């Protein structure tokens, strides 16, 4: 099931450091996720998972280090690199008083999506939101809002999808549906990096399992979906000791 490739990394972070005051959240993280893989990032609360994802998405500027998305340096290429990324955060990044469709039309304009109507219809259908398309976001359940947030993130068909605990607030069927979507995603050569606290999701979805501890990437393990494989010491963070 794995789609690991030996090509250039779709997601690459080198020596990423991020401090908030005198608190170091990321301490020289080196991360690489090859194209076509699903990587799952584990870590305790406060380990730095969200900060790492925001840094990779270009939402937080690292104090040191560089992010490359499909070979494009985030700091230099800015908009072009961000165009390759879809981001699902803890919040939906949506407007409560716009309808589902209006939210997606708005983001389609920002991302320059060609023929957005067809794309929006198909994506709403894929995420089982077609019958809610003209309902305001405010009226949707938390799970539906989360699904719409995923729709927003994949609307422009980015090469890289970053998801921060995407399963939170979703029922079992929706989690399974999201898993299928990610499998299709990697099958088409695209890449995803997600954080989760669920070891079941890690085992079921991941080609690669990463563990972050106190701002350091301490382990990178190749995995076979539905089973964790061997440790890949060569990819482990050198700073982890």
């Amino acid at each position: 099931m794995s789609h690991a490739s030996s090509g250039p990394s779709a997601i690459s972070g080198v020596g990423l450091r991020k401090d908030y005051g005198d608190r170091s959240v990321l301490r020289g993280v080196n991360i690489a996720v090859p194209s076509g893989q699903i990587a799952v990032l584990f870590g305790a609360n406060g380990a730095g998972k969200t900060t790492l994802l925001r840094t990779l998405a270009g939402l937080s500027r690292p104090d040191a280090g560089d992010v490359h998305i499909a070979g494009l340096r985030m700091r230099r290429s800015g908009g072009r690199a961000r165009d390759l990324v879809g981001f699902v955060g803890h919040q939906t990044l949506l407007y409560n008083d716009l309808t589902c469709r209006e939210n997606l039309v708005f983001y389609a304009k920002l991302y320059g999506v060609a023929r957005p109507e067809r794309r929006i219809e198909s994506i709403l259908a894929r995420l089982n939101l077609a019958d809610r398309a003209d309902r305001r976001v405010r009226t949707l359940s938390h799970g539906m809002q989360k699904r719409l947030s995923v729709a927003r993130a994949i609307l422009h068909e980015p090469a890289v999808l970053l998801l921060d605990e995407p399963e939170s607030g979703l029922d079992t069927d929706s989690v399974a549906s999201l898993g299928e979507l990610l499998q299709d995603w990697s099958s088409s050569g695209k890449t995803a990096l997600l954080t989760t606290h669920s070891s079941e999701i890690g085992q079921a979805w991941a080609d690669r399992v990463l563990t972050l501890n106190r701002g350091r990437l301490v382990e990178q393990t190749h995995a076979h979906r539905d089973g964790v494989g061997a440790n890949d010491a060569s990819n482990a963070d050198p700073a982890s000791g």
Partner: protein
Amino acid sequence: MRLLSATFAIAWKDVRLEFRSRDTIVSALIFGLIVVVVFNFGLNRAPGSLGPAAPGLLWVAYAFVGVLAMNRAFARELEQGALDGLLAAPVSRDAVFLGKMLGTLAFMVLIEAILLPVFAVMLDLPALSPVLGLIILLATIGFATVGTFFAAIAAQTRSREILLPVLFFPVIVPVIIAAVEATALALQGGPMLPIWTRWLPLLVVFDAVFLVICPWIFGFVFEG
């Protein structure tokens, strides 16, 4: 081209959101009226007899109403983290800033247009003066530009409602002075030369300078 389309998409989104919720329009209108009424009582003058105080009163009301609009513009972006959605998009920070600024400008101009006839009756002003319209437009561009920038900065803090006026009013003082002076001259119906040679150029220069500086610093502050 992408800059323009993104700018208008963001501005149109803000206008649509405002018309859908109407919370800021209603509160801003009520607040503007309250300011005029309170000043009437405070100055112990009958409505329509405020004379030289009228231009200052008009611009105090507009400035306070503007702060309400600016605070609300970015509060909406924080509700579901939508500001991250804007910043993660492949559009320049200039487009984000200009879109937010245009949305605020449209909203402020609408509120001012509604309040002006009311003020004209209460303060005995000639509301249908083209020169007054130009003064209001130029000053409001300055308000919206500086206000959008500081609202974006203040939105990153917990005390945003307090911080915005503290940052905004000291910087906007030249606009308020020019607007009040020009409005006074326009309402007096006397010589218009100082308006065209002194106060309007000051407003134009202020707008031009801050329309360059604010997007540039905004881009630096919000660069990921």
